[in-house]
């Protein structure tokens, strides 16, 4: 139960003897021991009835329950895991590029090292980590696959269960965060890692450059904390940021089906912020990306089509409906920019010059198209009032990846 987690008194299972557990204060030297926050404006004092003092508490991770300086965090003892052989049921073949990256990952896991895997959108990152996970399970190591996006967690879960049929996989994301039993594989959003400390031997972080992970130091702190002292950390991304450049790196420049990435076409639409351009009818399913939730809702109302964003209550059903092809055109915000795979779609970005579409976001969005081997092409259009640096750099980076892929 709760193996490897550090919990507050309220979160502990009812009938447990706290005196036998390792514990330390919730806040040490002005740093929250769960989320690593030490920003002054995210720490505050309150008159605490339990200790009678003006007690310091953390406001950063308050949604998970309050951490105070006077109440301890308890460590749940970690279970031991037996080595398991031949756990991988996935029998697909990897391309030579995937194989190269996969070998690198396995080697990194054996050496307890760190590795950044830079693979273009649709390179088949998930398949590349399978043999590394199998190796880890064989050594009796506990594996965590974490990603900033809950949608990515939901998509990966069935794929992992299929690949490792005999291995229980815990799936943790906001609202589904209770881990009942010990599992050798944990699939989780990076936020859920706050509760773990020195729990994993192998930590695979998918989409490291995604919001909110890349600009939230407390999430980065949490992942470092969740890994054991002797452990390997593998970062996967299609668009590495500058601060990740110093890591040992392996690059996969080609998609698994060998076709180049769709290059975005630029369409000038002078009044794109208020008025929709005339779209040509699309034969494939169509994803429309809008910069903000308000704009997405407006477009959805105008075209009478469904919309999905971070605050939609029926987000999962709509995405499922799109996946089952019950929905032809879907409006969305950047929440669907990465990690999710729809086999054959066209992608139009409305107001690509908006500041939320940075280079990484645009490359990722363009990477939603042409992901299946049956239909490796897709129409990617950026509708904009004018080119921004991000738009130019995104196209430049797609072109240069295609070029590097073509040379190999």
């Amino acid at each position, binding site marked *: 139960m709760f193996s490897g987690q550090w919990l507050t008194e309220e979160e502990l299972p009812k009938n447990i003897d706290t005196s036998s557990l390792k514990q330390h204060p919730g806040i040490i030297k002005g740093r929250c021991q769960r989320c690593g926050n030490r920003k002054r*404006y995210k720490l*505050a004092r*309150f*008159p605490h*009835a*339990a200790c009678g003092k003006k*007690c310091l508490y953390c*406001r950063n991770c*308050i949604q998970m329950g309050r951490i105070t300086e006077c109440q301890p965090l308890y460590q749940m003892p970690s279970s031991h895991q037996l080595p398991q052989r031949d756990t991988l049921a996935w029998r697909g073949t990897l391309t030579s590029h995937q194989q190269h990256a996969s070998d690198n990952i396995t080697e990194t896991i054996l050496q307890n090292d760190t590795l950044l895997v830079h693979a273009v959108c649709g390179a088949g990152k998930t398949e590349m980590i399978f043999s590394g996970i199998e190796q880890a399970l064989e050594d009796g190591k506990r594996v965590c696959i974490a990603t900033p996006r809950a949608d990515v967690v939901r998509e990966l879960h069935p794929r992992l269960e299929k690949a490792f049929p005999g291995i229980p996989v815990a799936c943790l994301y906001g609202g589904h965060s209770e881990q009942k039993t010990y599992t050798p594989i944990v699939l989780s959003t990076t936020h859920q890692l706050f509760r773990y400390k020195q729990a994993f031997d192998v930590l695979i972080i998918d989409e490291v450059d995604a919001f909110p992970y890349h600009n939230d130091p407390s999430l980065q702190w949490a992942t470092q904390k969740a890994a054991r002292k002797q452990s390997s950390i593998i970062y996967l991304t299609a668009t590495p940021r500058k601060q990740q450049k110093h890591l040992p790196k392996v690059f996969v420049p080609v998609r698994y089906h060998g076709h180049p990435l769709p290059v975005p076409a630029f369409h000038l639409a002078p009044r794109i912020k208020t008025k929709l351009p005339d779209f040509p009818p699309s034969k494939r399913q169509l994803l429309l990306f809008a910069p903000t939730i308000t704009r997405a809702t407006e477009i959805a109302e105008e075209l009478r089509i469904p919309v999905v964003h971070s605050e939609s209550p029926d987000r999962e059903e709509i995405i499922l409906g799109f996946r089952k092809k019950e929905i032809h055109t879907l409006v969305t915000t950047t929440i669907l920019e990465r990690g999710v795979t729809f086999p054959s779609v066209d992608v139009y970005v409305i107001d690509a010059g908006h500041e939320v579409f940075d280079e990484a976001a645009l490359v990722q969005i363009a990477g939603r198209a042409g992901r299946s081997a049956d239909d490796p092409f897709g129409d990617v259009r950026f509708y904009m009032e004018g080119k921004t640096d991000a738009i130019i750099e995104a196209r430049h980076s797609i072109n240069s990846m295609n070029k590097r892929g073509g040379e190999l």
Partner: protein
Amino acid sequence: MRCLYCFNAIQPVIGWSNVLLPAREVKLCEDCRLGFLEITEGCPGCCNPRYTSTCPDCQNGSSLEQNISFLYYNDFAKDWVARWKYRGDYALVESMSAYLPYFVRGKAVPVPLSEERLLERGFNQSEAIIRILGKQSHDLLGRTHTDKQSKKSKYERQQEPNPFYVKAPVKGDILLVDDIYTTGSTMKKAARVLKDNGAASVKGLTLFRA
């Protein structure tokens, strides 16, 4: 400056009013401020915004002379209260200073929590509001432990025995402070006990009006 609720940076707007005078400290960003909706008109007795004249509830008379509330208990307010009261983010209460009056008459008495609930929550939310009002808190009432009010219907609330009792002698005009006025049964029960024990008058002040 950072917004107390969403932590986004607040850009101070410079105009004649704050070039010449020290600006009133802004605790919430524009977006979060727009989430709250201020009550401008309501029942004069209980501040119920669905009525403009005395509502049927108040016509029946009550132990509480008057209740004043400041904000609608809308979805944004519900999230705010959940984080403040149930998650225990005490500091959020500072953001209410913009909605509260500078001065209210009466001896401020917080609606108490039972011992168990106080230990669980860590603080009394009514006392926090009194602190923001800039008044002295008079801890005159005690409360026996019952289930949470927010899980019950109006009828169930009214049928329950009065959980309040006085801890200290009561006199004068009382300002009873709580966070949310829903059916008013908590406030009325507390007011009843105060009046039976010597209060001259009891008025209510609540942040939110459901």
